[in-house]
């Protein structure tokens, strides 16, 4: 039987509590992984491994957390995401909410796209596929 979004959220919360050593009341849907929950780069790998195990899914590299777009000069100019970069990123991350990032596409703020909600959306879509 398909898992509801709430059930996915609860399991994602458990994953983040274990991977990042945070309290479960810190893990809200809007929390950013890096800013609010203190994730570092290696934690993203750990989170991907744990999600794969928890939900019995396969997460190809760069699908949940695209990491190659920021290094492409065509997509980033003077520390800001170009229009082309934004389009590419939005296609790569249909699970993320771009409302704030589109207003101020400073690449330093790109990590704010990685929220708890982003993961929950991604996993929910993956399980439904």
């Amino acid at each position, binding site marked *: 039987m398909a898992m509801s979004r709430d059930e996915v959220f609860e399991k994602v919360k458990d994953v983040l509590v274990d991977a990042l050593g945070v309290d479960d009341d810190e893990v809200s849907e809007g929390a950013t992984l890096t800013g609010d929950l203190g994730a570092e780069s*290696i934690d993203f*790998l*750990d989170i991907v491994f744990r999600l794969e195990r928890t939900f019995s899914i396969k997460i190809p590299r760069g699908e949940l957390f695209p990491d190659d777009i920021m290094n492409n000069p065509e997509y980033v100019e003077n520390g800001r995401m170009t229009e082309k970069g934004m389009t590419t990123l939005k296609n790569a991350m249909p699970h993320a909410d771009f409302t704030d990032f589109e207003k101020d596409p400073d690449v330093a703020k790109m990590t704010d796209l990685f929220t708890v909600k982003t993961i929950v959306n991604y996993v929910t879509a993956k399980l439904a596929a």
Partner: protein
Amino acid sequence: MRWVWIDKFTDFQSGIRATAIKNVSLAEEHLHDHFPGWPVMPASLIVEGMAQTAGILVGEARKFEEKVILAKVKRASFLKEVRPGDQLRYDAEIEHLTEEAAATIGRVTLDGEPLAEIDIVFSHIDNNMSGLVFPEENFVFTDEFKSLLSSYNVSTKNA
């Protein structure tokens, strides 16, 4: 002193699991400071023993082509002290292995009793540090570490 915290492999299944043992001896100088009159193996060195057991397992799985670096200790819990004369058994198992990283599950036992649980994430740094360049030679897997594996292979062939 050499930075090798396991004495030999007793089991090695490529890409799957490995077992190593470590004999703790009062000849190890640090035990005289940790603590004076009450020598106890530091927990950090038990983690290092697991990192070496699991790290060689992960490295061998890719024929030592990757530079395997300990990136994160996911979990480390210890149940009791380790004293001179004790023999530790490290069991490591690969949980995940990808192009860029690996995760391992580790259990340490003493006389068959659980002693520690140590789970680790390793990074294959050449594939994983967005553009940083590291020396060509594999500085992680020195001959000292590889010889542990070759002596295991020799002993199993002779058995």
